[in-house]
């Protein structure tokens, strides 16, 4: 069998040039050389053509890392910046922060391969006591993040991560290890500009009785893909992955989740809701795999989207793959327009059309944000939703 070397696009060439001469760099290089960046011909990328997004080369990194919001002032902030790693705030007891060289993450795909290769180091957070203050992971434009969070048995920790570059390639690879009875909460804000390529992969393992709960608010970019691959390894593990997306212009956002139940009695709750307008495209690919051993699994997945313009697009692929025979699994998926009758009703009460649409859209996605228990973070993200409504002039 001969390898066919694809013709490299400007983006692929530029990306190859960025990869380091190391084992992890070589792994990514080989992946790109053999198949090129994934295109729509690759099933897992059929609505998110990374090669096309980077066809003209890598846009220069631009934008700001964003401010830490008032409600998260108590957070320990870890900056992933062009000049290296920065830490601000008081480190709680039971938390150690170390770095190690970035090694390949096998078998997870092209995005973690690139993210692993671009990261200069892996930041390792070892958490042996519950952390009262959230840990804020702040990605600066053009600075790759790789982090491994190891939450020891029974501890609780909240992670907040942001990707706010307006331009350029941003990558993040998170490995999250939830030990027995531990609880890791993750809150994500992604808001990229029209020249932002944002590639994020979270690799999560959950031990017996452990809980991983994640909520993301996504405004997309030229190309934004957030993957979560979670495995419920221990008995009675819980996983909740939620996301809200609001896209306009030519924005693109892709949420791809793969949740594997390998042990008995695990639960999964997944709720994604989004609204797209103009020429934007929202993608949801959610797979729940229940292995033979994972009896008594209780998994529910829902994705609901609103199309606010004729030219907008939402693509969804919900998948349940079940090998155990005593499980409760369900999924629901709807894509529709705003209810014209409801809009008329609101206008009859004197609410102008634009405001009526905004109220309905906001109420629609707020269901997702309402699940967040950290009050400050919930208000922070709700504020971002309101700002989007004002700017989008629905």
């Amino acid at each position, binding site marked *: 069998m001969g390898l066919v070397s694809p013709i490299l696009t400007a983006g692929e060439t530029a990306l190859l040039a960025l990869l380091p001469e190391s084992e992890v760099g070589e792994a990514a290089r080989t992946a790109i050389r053999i198949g090129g960046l994934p295109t729509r011909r690759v099933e897992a990328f059929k609505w998110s053509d990374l090669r096309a997004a980077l066809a003209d080369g890598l846009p220069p990194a631009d934008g700001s890392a964003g401010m830490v919001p008032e409600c998260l002032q108590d957070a320990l902030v870890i900056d992933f910046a062009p000049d290296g790693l920065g830490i601000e705030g008081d480190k709680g007891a039971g938390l150690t922060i170390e770095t190690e060289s970035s090694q390949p993450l096998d078998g997870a795909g092209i995005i973690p391969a690139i993210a692993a290769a671009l990261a200069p180091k892996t930041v390792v957070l070892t958490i042996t006591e519950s952390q009262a203050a959230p840990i804020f992971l702040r990605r600066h434009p053009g600075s790759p993040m790789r982090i491994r969070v190891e939450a020891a048995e029974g501890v609780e920790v909240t992670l907040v991560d942001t990707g706010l570059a307006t331009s350029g390639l941003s990558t993040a690879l998170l490995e999250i290890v939830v030990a027995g009875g531990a609880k890791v909460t993750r809150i994500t804000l992604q808001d990229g500009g029209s020249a932002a390529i944002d590639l994020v992969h979270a690799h999560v393992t959950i031990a017996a009785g452990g809980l991983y709960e994640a909520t993301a608010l996504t405004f997309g970019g030229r190309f934004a893909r957030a993957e979560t691959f979670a495995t419920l390894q221990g008995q009675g593990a819980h996983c909740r992955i939620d996301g809200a997306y609001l896209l306009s212009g030519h924005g693109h956002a892709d949420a791809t989740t793969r949740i594997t139940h390998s042990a008995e009695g695990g639960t999964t709750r997944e709720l994604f809701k989004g609204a797209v307008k103009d020429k934007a495209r929202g993608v949801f690919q959610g797979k729940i795999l229940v292995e033979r051993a994972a009896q008594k699994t209780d998994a529910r997945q829902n994705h609901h989207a609103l199309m606010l313009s004729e030219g907008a697009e939402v693509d969804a692929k919900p998948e349940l793959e079940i090998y155990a025979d005593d499980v409760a699994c369900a999924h629901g998926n709807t894509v529709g327009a705003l209810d014209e*009758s*409801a809009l008329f009703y*609101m206008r*009859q009460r004197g609410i102008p059309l634009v405001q009526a649409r905004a109220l309905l859209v906001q109420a629609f996605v707020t269901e997702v944000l309402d699940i967040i228990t950290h009050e400050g973070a919930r208000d922070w993200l709700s504020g971002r939703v309101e700002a989007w409504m004002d700017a989008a002039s629905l």
Partner: protein
Amino acid sequence: MRSLHSVIPDRKRDDQLLPIVSKTKKAMPRTMPRTMLSIKNLIVDIDGKTIINGLTLDVPAGQVHAIMGPNGAGKSTLSYALTGRSGYEVTGGTATLDGIDLLALAPEDRAAKGLFLSFQYPLEIPGVPSLTFLRTALNAQRRARGEDEMSVPDFMKLSRDVAKRLGVTPDMMKRPLNVGFSGGEKKRMEIYQMAILAPRFMILDETDSGLDIDALRVVSEGVNALRGPDRSMLVITHYQRLLDLITPDRVHVLAGGKIVDSGGPELALALEADGYDRYKDAA
């Protein structure tokens, strides 16, 4: 057409009576009430099919007029056309409120001018708490009229006072508007909204449908409390029973897309007794 005039010979017509009053009793300060809603030769199509066909109706300030008619007569079409729902295409005629051309305005602007429709089937608005919805609506109307927005404390006081009168519970006010409400709760919420928005012209579209007798009384009391010299109402109903509780000044029969008969409250009683059959060929 067989007229009801023969059935109820002692009925008096306003248009005959009023000029005599003004001529013979010059000293009396009473003047003929100004016309609030004026509809002339209105034609409304849905999907190219004419539903309202040359309807003419004047409702003076301070009066309650009832519109009765058989199913399919165009009662709901009239209420939607007046409030500007899309799909209800006005192809002829005029409709004015205090001289303002309603048909030229967007639905929200008609609302700001004081036009309110109590829906036959109130919509559910998921995710928007009733009070948030209502405050948004009230302040949007006030802004449109160039008035200051109502402050949160003032609004809370108003909403609580009105709620007490209409049996609207704090739970109903907090829940998303109409979501999970019973039929009766939805209708009560319509009247609650009406009381807070304080419109000048109200259309009640089959407000009695789905109400038991107790709920009907609460709703009717709420409606009657809003009657006044500067307010008018159009009460659309299929049955007489609502008109026992909300006594109309005039009753009109809508059949085949136009008003085919008009009279006093006794006309409703006659309809209740005899049905609408006599109007079958009227249109």
